[in-house]
């Protein structure tokens, strides 16, 4: 028993005499900056410390022998340091290397604006697109309140940095959308076909964009469609322009969803209340249906389908510019389909594949008649240009695209991406002249493209995107190689400088084809320098750009007076500076942004007789958008003001005797001013378990009825000119949107706070 006591005594004694050894040191980054808040711990013991503001740590331990020190702080690599603990105190300095993480890394952003709710560097949120009053809920129009775009009202599309609308291409989930807008009508810009709520993210690149996209000299608008709906729900809308309804169904296991929707548009009521400049014998009428499904596949894969079908018709009379009593009656019927199925799959080992196909068709049936005071068709053959005012035109087109992209994630955020595209297009036109003579033409093309790019993150502060695109178009029968480069450098936590360079090629637009001449690609070279300061509450962006155009298409009169591409002798340039400022904080509950663009551009293309400022380009453009949500009133107020200096206009006529074009007359339009206002009222906001969630919308476009002149049309002999103005000085939209099945209160808070 005594022995036992002895042992116990010894044991106790042993515990008391365990000597305490001090371990201390200094923790720094690999650039020798002290690190604060680093956890230093002796593995498998409680012993350790956290570094102070000078990067120093100190602790004592009773452990002995060979041990490991674990040194960790988020954003840096973990270091394990072997220690041999004897009887002397230990000094151990540690150096940690910064990890490249999405949170900290610089964003490669030169030339692009992003609208997204998640991604860092996004300038707009998804909802900004629908609450910008001048946009009228149109996907592309909200981008007209950002720098780089023109306030062009007489035709649809995005005119970016001295480029035409056809130089801006629109992609949905990586697939080109050929007829993104409703078919053109003379002098009136049409809307985009797609509902802005289909998309969760948008990247609008005003230049220097990735090698993943091609065939656009100026800009790429990349739309990313939604994955799954949040919940099963039904929607209904009633407005002054039509009715709509839809269902989105999410399966119980949230692994699949489907949706259908239908919209009917009829502007009869609106046009009866708001007098239009045109005399409509067919008010715009449209049926539009779409369907989608999404299925989660194995290992986080996702299969997505979207299909769209629409028909629309419109017909209106304008006074004929060449006579006092005659009228021009234009009528259009259109059928359009678009389908896209794509699949994303992780292949393991950092590899990902993204592949899919899209198919679309478009048919325009257009007639134009010269009519007398009683709206009866008249055929006048002398002078002969009158005869050409009676015609009909049938355009049928089909397009297909197949695409695959492989992506491999390397260390950190560094990644490589490569893939291929195949585009098929088949466009047929049948032109029927006043005398019944028919002219038919067909333009088909097969474009093959291969692309590769790599994102290289050297450190969190320095990144580069280097890529290239190789393309072959059957129409041109040549290969082109387009290098792309983008650099980004983080100057401080909130600010970064970026640079982008790229060469872009594009085929001629359909309206100057077919041609017998041997033609090449038209080409643009972009240089962009950007400086951005961005925090949660403020964004300031400045961009300086220079764009050089080479090999632009020149045209000459073809059969039936149509302009046909004859060579690539055109050229041009665009340069300028742009500012964007957004502030969500200075004024409480008010969010506003301001953008300004200065553009200096000239080009010699199509039938231009010299290098001149194109008629779609203004020198100064500015926009101001302000949003405020008044919680007690459950109402949101949105205001916008767009301004642009006057644009040049020309009467370019063909001099038959000299066989060349000349400027017969020119001028500059008045400045463009547009003030718009919208109100959203959410009566069921905050009600617990409302049967339906309701949003009332009132929108007034051009509140002050300011006079707008987009351009001028000239009579055949050039003696008369007529201003191209909006169809009405003002437009008012009133609508009610209902959602059933779920409480959309959260959306409302989300969207409008």
């Amino acid at each position, binding site marked *: 028993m005594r*022995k*036992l006591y002895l*042992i*116990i005594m010894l*044991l106790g004694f042993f*515990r008391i005499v365990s000597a305490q050894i001090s371990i201390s040191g200094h923790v720094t980054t690999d650039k020798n900056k002290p690190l604060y*808040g680093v*956890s230093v*711990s*002796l*593995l*498998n*013991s*409680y*012993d*350790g*410390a*956290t570094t102070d503001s000078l990067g120093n740590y100190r602790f004592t331990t009773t452990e002995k022998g060979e041990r490991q020190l*674990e040194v960790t702080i*988020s*954003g840096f690599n973990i270091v394990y340091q072997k220690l041999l603990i004897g009887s002397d105190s230990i000094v151990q300095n540690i150096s940690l290397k910064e990890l490249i993480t999405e*949170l900290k890394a610089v964003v490669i952003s030169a030339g692009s604006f992003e609208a997204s*709710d998640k991604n860092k560097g996004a300038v707009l*949120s998804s909802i900004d697109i629908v609450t910008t009053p001048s946009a009228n809920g149109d996907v592309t129009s909200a981008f007209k309140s950002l720098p780089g775009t023109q306030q062009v009202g007489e035709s649809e599309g995005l005119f970016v940095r001295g480029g035409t609308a056809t130089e801006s291409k629109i992609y949905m989930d990586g697939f080109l959308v050929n007829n993104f807008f409703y078919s053109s009508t003379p002098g009136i810009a049409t809307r985009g076909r797609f509902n802005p709520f289909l998309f969760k993210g948008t990247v609008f690149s005003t230049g220097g964009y990735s090698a993943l996209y091609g065939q656009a000299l100026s800009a790429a608008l990349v739309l990313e469609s939604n994955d799954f709906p*949040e919940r099963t729900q039904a929607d209904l809308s009633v407005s002054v322009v039509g009715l709509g309804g839809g269902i989105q169904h999410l399966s119980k296991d949230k692994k699949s969803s489907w949706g259908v929707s239908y919209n009917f548009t009829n502007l009869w009521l609106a046009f009866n209340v708001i007098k239009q400049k045109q005399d409509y014998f067919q008010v715009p009428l449209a049926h539009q249906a779409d369907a989608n499904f999404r299925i989660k596949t194995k290992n986080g894969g996702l299969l997505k389908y979207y299909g769209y079908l629409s028909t629309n018709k419109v017909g209106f009379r304008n006074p004929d510019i060449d006579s006092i009593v005659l009228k021009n009656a234009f009528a259009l019927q259109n059928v359009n389909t678009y389908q896209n199925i794509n699949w994303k799959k992780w292949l393991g080992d950092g590899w990902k594949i993204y592949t899919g196909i899209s198919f679309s068709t478009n048919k325009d049936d257009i007639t134009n008649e010269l009519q007398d005071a009683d709206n009866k068709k008249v055929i006048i053959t002398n002078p002969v240009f009158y005869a050409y005012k009676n015609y009909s035109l049938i355009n049928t087109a089909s397009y297909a695209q197949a695409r695959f992209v492989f992506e491999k994630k390397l260390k950190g955020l560094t990644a490589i991406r490569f893939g291929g595209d195949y585009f098929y297009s088949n466009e047929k036109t049948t032109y029927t002249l006043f005398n019944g003579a028919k002219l038919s033409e067909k333009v088909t093309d097969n474009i093959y493209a291969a692309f590769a790019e790599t994102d290289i993150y050297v450190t969190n502060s320095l990144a580069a995107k280097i890529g290239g695109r190789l393309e072959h178009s059957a129409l041109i029968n040549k290969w082109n190689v387009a290098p792309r480069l983008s650099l980004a450098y983080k100057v401080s*936590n*909130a600010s970064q400088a970026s640079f982008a360079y790229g060469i872009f090629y594009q085929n001629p637009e359909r309206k100057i084809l077919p041609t017998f001449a041997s033609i090449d690609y038209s080409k643009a070279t972009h240089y962009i320098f950007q400086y951005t300061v961005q*925090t*949660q*509450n403020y964004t300031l962006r400045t961009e300086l750009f220079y764009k050089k155009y080479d090999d632009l298409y020149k045209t000459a009169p073809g059969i039936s007076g149509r302009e046909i591409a004859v060579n690539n002798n055109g050229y041009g340039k665009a340069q300028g500076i742009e500012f964007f400022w957004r502030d969500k904080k200075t004024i409480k509950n008010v969010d506003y942004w301001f953008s300004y663009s200065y553009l200096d551009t000239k080009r010699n293309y199509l039938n231009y007789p010299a290098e001149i400022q194109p008629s779609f380009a203004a020198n100064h453009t500015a926009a101001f958008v302000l949003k405020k949500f008044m*919680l*007690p009133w*459950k109402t949101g107020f949105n205001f916008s003001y767009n301004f642009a200096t006057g644009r040049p206009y020309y009467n370019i006529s063909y001099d038959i005797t000299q066989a060349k074009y000349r400027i017969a007359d020119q001028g500059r339009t008045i400045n463009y001013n547009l003030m718009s206002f919208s109100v959203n009222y959410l009566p069921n*906001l*905050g*009600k*617990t378990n409302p049967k339906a969630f309701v949003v009332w919308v009132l929108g007034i476009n051009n509140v002050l009825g300011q006079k707008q002149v987009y351009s001028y049309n000239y009579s055949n002999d050039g003696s008369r000119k007529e201003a191209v103005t909006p169809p009405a000085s003002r437009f008012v939209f009133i609508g009610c949107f209902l959602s059933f099945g779920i409480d959309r*209160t*959260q*959306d409302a*808070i*989300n969207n409008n*706070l």
Partner: protein
Amino acid sequence: MKKLFLSTMVLFIAVIASAQSEKYIAAMKKNLSVIDSSFKNPPDLLTLSNSFERIGAAEKTQWLPYYYAAFCQVNYGFTIHDKDKIDGFADRAAVLIAKADSLSPNNSEISCIKSMIASCHMMVNPQQRWQEYGPASSSNIEAAMQQDPANPRPYYLKGQGLVYTPEQFGGGCKTAKPVLETAMDKYGSFKPASDINPNWGKPQVENLLKGCQ
């Protein structure tokens, strides 16, 4: 002799084992004693979180050290003003609470921390993040209520959330008060499983109720 050897061995193991748990409890108590004062100098919360994490890493089977490490980390996230940095601490707290969760699944207290982490993420940009983190925060509160109906903390968190939600959106003192009162009732009868088990929040609820009078 054999007997003696055996009994010595048993004793030795017992001494070590008791020393281990004594040491654990003592270390935990030491850390817990400074939690309240750490809130006055928030960087101390990070030091404390690291200290709890070390205990967790050494113990390997105890959920409480990781729970408190996450608690300190997320509370630090709530105190910082630089919104661009908040996510980093919330993410760190999420890693820590996941470790606690794997050691003690379906734990009401752990669900409370998960809810706090979601709220912390949401705080960076409530307008944009409501949709993602709002449901994550409230579903964890509901889970916590189900996992342990006697736990007052989910009621505290729910009540606190309601106080700071505008009346128009179904928040405000009027709706928060009954929830906070339920929390007070539950604090009255709540007995933590041990000295080192979670037992916080009562004074905060009292303050919230005072503010709602």
